[in-house]
């Protein structure tokens, strides 16, 4: 971690490395024993890990040069290896390759710096040491609501991680820069609570600029369905994912689905943050990373599948609980349920026509949103609507 001296940089008490887990989070006594990585490794495991990293390096090539070729030739091998978890030392690079953010970065040189020029008066006055030549008009223009929201949330994003703990430290500043750049880049979305967790997670594995482009790749849909609908006004995609998840629960676990209905539990009471932050909020970090590996390669369906797997794992307990206990359980899954090596294989094994229908639906939906938000002729919009209704009926006519 770099250490720069800035005027208003007040280093808080830095926890000693012993108190941190492998990822830099301050350890909580409760899951001291099982962060999934502190367990001692045998020589055999160590060897195996080494071998894995070697294989991965071969697959990627120098700086990612062989990656595309490899993916085209052996997509199933790539998929299988990603599902086993990307080696931590290569994660940052691989994430950029599989999300398409690398290409975005290369296609848009200088854009991130340019966005960075939109510093507001607030920040300029705080950081006198960073003198930036800015058009004064831009400065005024940019003191937006988003920015104030970002500032208010900065110290409340991963507050237990050493990188983000220090007020105005390098972590918080990077986080601010990335979120601010995104809010300028995409005014419709701006900054929405929850995006900080995505950016924070990414910043632990890559530079500011790389993290920014990965965020763009995700929200704008470089490879998979765009996520921006999760954050736009009205959170339309959240609503949609949740109602779909509701149906999936009923399809896969009818008994639990019935119990949820009886207890008036609906997924927005427990699952909205799963989708909004892709499990990076209030889930064990090592699990979040493994989910992100797959999420970036295979898309949002893994979020549905992990959600279903969690419910499935705890099914027999959940069906017995009354409302309050049920909500509590759905927000505090037991440690053993959140072991990636148990949970993920379970998630992979969930097959559903509806999940793939869901993907279809999301793609169509995004097109329609795009059409309806723009000034296309009415007939086009209607055609698009009808197309959606068509997809809808194929999705919903299963019972």
């Amino acid at each position: 971690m770099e250490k720069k001296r800035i005027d208003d940089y007040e280093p808080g008490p830095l926890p000693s490395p012993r108190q941190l887990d492998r990822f830099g989070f301050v350890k909580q006594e409760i899951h001291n024993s099982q962060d999934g990585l502190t367990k001692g490794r045998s020589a055999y495991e160590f060897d195996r890990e080494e071998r894995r990293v070697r294989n991965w390096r071969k697959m990627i090539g120098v700086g990612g040069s062989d990656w595309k070729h490899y993916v085209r030739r052996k997509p199933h091998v790539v998929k299988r290896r990603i599902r086993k978890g990307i080696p931590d030392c290569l994660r940052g690079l691989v994430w950029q390759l599989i999300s398409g953010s690398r290409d975005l970065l290369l296609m848009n040189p200088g854009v991130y710096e340019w966005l960075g020029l939109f510093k507001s008066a607030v920040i300029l006055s705080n950081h006198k040491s960073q003198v930036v030549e800015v058009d004064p008009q831009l400065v005024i223009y940019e003191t937006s609501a988003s920015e104030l929201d970002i500032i208010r949330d900065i110290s409340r994003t991963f507050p237990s991680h050493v990188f983000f703990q220090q007020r105005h430290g390098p972590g918080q500043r990077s986080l601010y820069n990335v979120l601010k750049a995104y809010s300028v880049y995409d005014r419709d979305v701006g900054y929405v609570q929850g995006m900080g967790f995505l950016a924070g997670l990414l910043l632990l594995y890559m530079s500011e600029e790389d993290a920014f482009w990965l965020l763009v790749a995700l929200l704008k849909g470089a490879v998979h369905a765009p996520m921006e609908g999760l954050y736009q006004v009205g959170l339309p995609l959240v609503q949609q994912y949740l109602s779909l998840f509701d149906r999936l629960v009923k399809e896969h676990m009818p008994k639990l689905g019935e119990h949820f209905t009886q207890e008036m539990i609906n997924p927005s009471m427990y699952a909205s943050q799963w989708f909004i932050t892709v499990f990076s909020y209030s889930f064990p970090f090592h699990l979040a990373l493994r989910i992100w590996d797959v999420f970036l390669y295979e898309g949002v369906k893994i979020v549905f599948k992990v959600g279903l797997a969690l419910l499935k794992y705890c099914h027999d307990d959940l069906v017995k609980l009354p409302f309050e206990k049920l909500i509590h359980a759905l927000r505090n899954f037991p440690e053993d349920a959140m072991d990636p090596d148990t949970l993920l294989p379970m998630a992979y094994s969930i097959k559903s026509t509806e999940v793939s229908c869901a993907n279809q639906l999301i793609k169509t939906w995004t097109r329609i949103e795009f059409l309806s938000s723009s000034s296309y002729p009415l007939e086009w919009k209607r055609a698009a609507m009808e197309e959606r209704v068509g997809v809808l009926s194929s999705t919903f006519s299963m019972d």
Partner: protein
Amino acid sequence: MARTGNKNIQAKLVLLGDMGTGKTSMVLRFTKGQFFDFQESTIGAAFFTQVLSLNEATIKFDIWDTAGQERYHSLAPMYYRGAAAAVVVYDITSMDSFERAKKWVIELQRQGNPNLIMFLVGNKVDLEEKRKVGNEEAEQYAKENGLVFLETSAKTAQNVNELFYEIAKRLTKKVPSRPTGMKLHRRPQETGRRRQLPRFPQLFVRMLVYQIELHCGPSDLKIKAALNEK
């Protein structure tokens, strides 16, 4: 009032207010006696329960703590719907948060249930030197709108327990003496007839619900419950 002197009341309570006003901190102070200077932002909503015993009754709170940012507004109705009490929180050091609180009050008056007990709470009184919203101003506003007004500090615990006791007291007054186990949730009738919807084709109704949700947020759960019956 109560003959036995011991009613059991279960009440749904919702916290609303701008981001960073201290909603989560207030609940954590009340339920766990904890306070963190940097409390993680709430994404979506959080749920807590706490039991309070008064002389007249035992109140079990089901507390929905919501995400504060304007963008999450569309999720809010599902948390305040059917609530017995709402606590609208602002930060005394931020005029914006007070304005936002007023908007919440208006929304609750319009859409919430008429029996809803509403509290207006100015949090962070430990930051007196940074105060932007005057005590009198807020009190005046609360009076005009029939709200109970309190100033609190989740950090120093000032008035936090008092707030929840006050809510509990008002709830017990509202609830006529009835057999124990009274619930202040709007829930479907446990037994007997749920209202039958006209028998539209299932698919059609589903699509309707879907469309409603798409445009107006989560739709009435009753429709869904009825759908799932069949």
